[in-house]
């Protein structure tokens, strides 16, 4: 069966001033699958997630999510779509005026009519799933970077969105929590059939969870395919990236 596409970048070019970040970049995100994006630091991976969330617009090309073209859509009309999509930010981006519990519960409190106890319950569960109990009442500035990252992860999954964009969810975390997070991503996909895009540098967890892997290099996707295809790819760029070798076509 041909997989259906949930979201895509279509010939996207994006530049900040003179600096071209993405150049004629196309990428398809398969519905119900986990797509991992790998690439060098600064290659534009976070930028792709921001495009998929409609936070920025490409200089040219189109971004589609669930059949909607995000380009030139007024912010107001994106609201509904954004309730079905969530982005777990690379640096958490929790609101520092709210406690962790309030932060994680915020999308529920704002977009649903659930009673407070119910929200509290869901938030506790979400925090538990990332190994963060007992910090409901802490403020973001009282936590470590890794704890913040996990709380940001909890906030992204708390509404059970159809599409979750995870920006380096395991970078900087210890191996045990890394496994916990990886399992949570897989479990969510299995339980809810949602679609996920994960940026990661952690090859071990990538090959544990990914259905598809895409490699971004110099502004475009240079390799894309099912996990095993990428793992055994003979593409010299992919090989060099996977082995971490300093010798190869990717300049160091």
């Amino acid at each position: 069966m041909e997989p259906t596409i949930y979201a895509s970048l279509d010939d996207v070019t994006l530049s900040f001033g003179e600096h071209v970040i993405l150049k004629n970049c196309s990428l398809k995100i398969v519905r119900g699958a986990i797509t991992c994006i790998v690439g060098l630091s600064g290659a534009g991976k976070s930028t792709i997630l921001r495009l998929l969330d409609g936070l920025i617009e490409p200089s040219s090309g189109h971004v589609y999510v669930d059949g909607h073209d995000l380009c030139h859509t007024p912010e107001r009309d994106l609201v509904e779509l954004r309730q079905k999509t969530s982005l777990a930010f690379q640096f958490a981006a929790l609101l520092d005026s709210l406690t962790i519990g309030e932060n994680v519960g915020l999308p529920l409190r704002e977009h649903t009519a659930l009673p407070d106890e119910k929200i509290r319950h869901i938030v506790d569960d979400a925090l538990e799933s990332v190994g963060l109990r007992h910090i409901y009442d802490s403020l973001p500035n009282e936590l470590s970077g890794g704890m913040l990252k996990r709380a940001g992860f909890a906030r992204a999954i708390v509404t059970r969105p159809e599409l979750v964009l995870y920006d380096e969810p395991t970078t900087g975390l210890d191996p045990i929590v890394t496994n916990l997070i990886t399992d949570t991503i897989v479990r969510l996909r299995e339980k809810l059939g949602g679609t996920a895009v994960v940026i990661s540098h952690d090859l071990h967890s990538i090959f544990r969870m990914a259905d598809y892997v895409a490699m971004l290099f110099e502004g475009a996707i240079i390799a894309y395919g099912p996990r095993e295809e990428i793992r055994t790819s003979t593409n010299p760029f992919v090989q060099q990236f996977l082995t971490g070798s300093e010798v190869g076509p990717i300049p160091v």
Partner: protein
Amino acid sequence: MGILERFGERTIAFLEYLGGMTALIGESVRSLVHAQIRYAETFLQAYELGIGSLLIVLLTSLFTGMVISLESAQQAVQFGIGSLVGGAVTYTSVRELGPMLTAVVVAGRVGSAIAAEIGSMVVTEQIDALRSMGLSPVRFLVVPRLLALAIMLPLLTVFADIISILGGMWIAQAYAHINPASFISSARQAVGFEDVVKGLLKALIFACIIAFVGCYQGLSTRGGAAGVGRATTSAVVISIILIFGTNFVMSYLLFGGH
């Protein structure tokens, strides 16, 4: 770069500013009309900015009332019209200096804090996080601050007017032996209820200026901690200039006929 080119660039930047500001005001009004208001946040903001600004507003107004009284009493007694001092102090306080000074003080204290807070939320991606959750930063942040200022600035102005008149009365008596009864009767002759209302209308407009400029500078912050610093400074500078300009226009429109 040629002069013409630079002029063109400035013009475009200015038009962009106007466009951005108009959009901000438009969206705030839309939120207000749809009653999408976060009341708890609004009251918290109002409480904090009211309590936080009260002392400095009272002090600046007190000394201003005292100095006007000092200057006018000196002159008035010389010309034998000491009985007019109450009117002079009250008139300038209620119509001009009360609303203006309060607004300038609040622009420095609150407008800058708003720009800094929102600006740091921009650079730490908190604003993007709000948008990403489908929450409007305008409804979430701008509207509560706007309402809080719109409630508190007129209120602070009332306090400023009162304390400035009391300060003036005290100096008039201590310095020129003008008794409070004559001070008050002169004040009542010079200033009507209408003047007070017009003064408070000024305060309301100033509140909108401080809120919109502070929020806009915050939301358009670019480039890290230095950017937050720039946003804060320009929020204060721009709102103070706008307050002075608007004050003149409003005085002309409201009081010009008299």
